[in-house]
């Protein structure tokens, strides 16, 4: 009961912040609403006892990514006249809604109201805990984990080359 109440409060907050992100004309206001949305989402994860994901959501998205977004907004140095409200065309809105429903929500509905007798794979008790994930990452999944550092190195070198005027 209490869980349901908390869920609906968080879900409402998430939707509200989400709407604020796309309706504000001031990009900083949008960005800050996005922090709120990320926070509500993290709380939802925590409600599902996915603690690690909740922490990562806060650290990476609400922390790191948002700092980047705000940095970019400031670097762009937009003026009042650049920030006119965007006219939404009904067709565009309808199409994007259709795309979202088809791609994301469709399967979610299928998953929530299943037809046929298939089911999701069973979870172990400690699924997604920091301990299990850490153990997996540094044993079985060590190779992709190390590969990520390679990917980041390539991306850093490339970003430097592409962005720097003189090296």
């Amino acid at each position: 009961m209490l869980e349901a109440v908390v869920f609906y409060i968080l879900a409402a907050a998430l939707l509200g912040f989400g709407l604020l992100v796309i309706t504000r004309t001031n990009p900083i206001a949008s960005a800050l609403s996005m922090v709120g949305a990320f926070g509500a989402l993290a709380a939802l994860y925590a409600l599902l006892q996915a603690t690690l994901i909740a922490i990562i959501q806060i650290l990476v998205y609400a922390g790191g990514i948002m700092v980047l977004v705000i940095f970019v907004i400031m670097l762009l140095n937009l003026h009042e006249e650049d920030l006119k409200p965007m006219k939404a065309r009904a067709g565009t809105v309808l199409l994007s809604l259709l795309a979202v429903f088809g791609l994301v929500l469709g399967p979610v509905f299928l998953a929530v109201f299943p037809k046929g007798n298939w089911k999701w794979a069973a979870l172990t008790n400690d699924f997604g805990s920091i301990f299990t994930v850490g153990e997996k990452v540094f044993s079985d999944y060590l190779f992709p984990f190390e590969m990520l550092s390679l990917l980041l190195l390539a991306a850093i070198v490339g970003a430097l080359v592409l962005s720097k005027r003189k090296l």
Partner: protein
Amino acid sequence: MINYLTFLPEIILVCTAILILVVELFQAPSSKRSSIRWIAFLGTLAALLCLSCLSGSCPLGCNLTDGTAQQAFNGFIKTDGLALYFKMIILLATLFTLLMTYRHFETHKTPYPAEFLAILLFSAAGASALTSAQEIITLYIALETLTISSYLLASFMKKDKGSNEAGMKYLLLGAFSSALLLFGFSYIYGLTGTTVITEIAKSLAMQPSSPLAVFALILVVGGLAFKISLAPFHMWTPDVYEGAPTPVTAFLSVASKTAGFAAFVRLFWVGLNVPSLQPIWMGLFAVLSAMSIILGNLEAIPQKNIKRLMGYSSIAQAGYIATGFLAIGPMGLTALLFYIFVYLFANLGVFLTIVIVANKTGSEQIEDYAGMWKRSPLIGIVLLVCLLSLAGVPPFAGFSGKWYLFGAAISKGYTWLALIGMTFSVVSLFYYLQVAKQALVVAPKDPSPIEMSLLERSVLILCVVVTVTLGVWPRPIMDLAQAAASSLF
């Protein structure tokens, strides 16, 4: 204890890349930086040679293994014969690309040659790791290493509008397709509870078919088809191929596609090859393959720019290779592997001439190939032989390659697809011969000869020799491909 032999080629490539970055720091800004070129070349060559040591049948007798598949991390990565074959193609393509790079950067100056080479080797390492991946997270991250490096390589000429456009388009569409792929993977994981491809197959075979599995399957096909530019996911190809630096285009057209097909074979032939899903993805692939062959060939006809033409041609070629992919079994896989080898030499031969010609004339327009025969007989021969091989004209290797591919497809009941393939191979002759006609028949506007280095000359001769030899005597590579295919069946 980790078995480092499993990913020895990747280790060599990555160490070489990092060495290049470090060595460049100690070079005077005015130096010609030939040392880093040598490091890159030797490093890739070493990785290529170590493949033969890993295969257990090294001609020099320096065997690191007894020929069994090497594995590490509970079999999460396993370097079997199939992976070694794919790695061989990718590393050969990288060597070709390096050779083109050295020539290309003579006229297209970049202040960052070391970074270019390092990123190229990173992406080769990603492609190479992809071929041994036995589980979807490794597969995805290796694929991302390959594609993110490719975005950077495509936009490397940052003062050049075309290169910028290529990089941007590739990045936006590529990121979208990667997201689709990952989304599909997440559903597969949710349904099966495992990321290991063989376990996925077991788990999917035990449960009743679900709409979600079909949905995941479509997402994965879409995401990966983008990477190998199968129609209708091919929109980026012509623009990126035209705008990117030519060596990068060459790398994308062979190494990226090879890695994509490696992922396809592992994921679909092993992981999703269950009775409830197989007919669905087979149907999807048949359509994609037919569309690629038809659209790629038709759209190539009006092209004026040779890189754009090769872009459309590569779409059609991906379609041909996909017909072999449909013939699940040793025969189809052997044909696919053989054709990729043939495609490598024919395609890269053409790209090497594009680089050499553009270096002299500064043009990539087909009309500027007029009279190439007079200006450099070798280039004329390479264009003729390689393009005819791509079109599948006997006695060149492309013919035997297509023979095996379509034969495998027919044996599995895809006669209509083989017929489309053959019909449009004839159509493709039209635009391939257009280039050859310019080079061989039309009189040159500027008769000055085109010079090339000894190495380039010998590589071009090698392309011609391989293409002609495999056309009349495909046995050696067929044996190699058969041995590689047998590791999956």
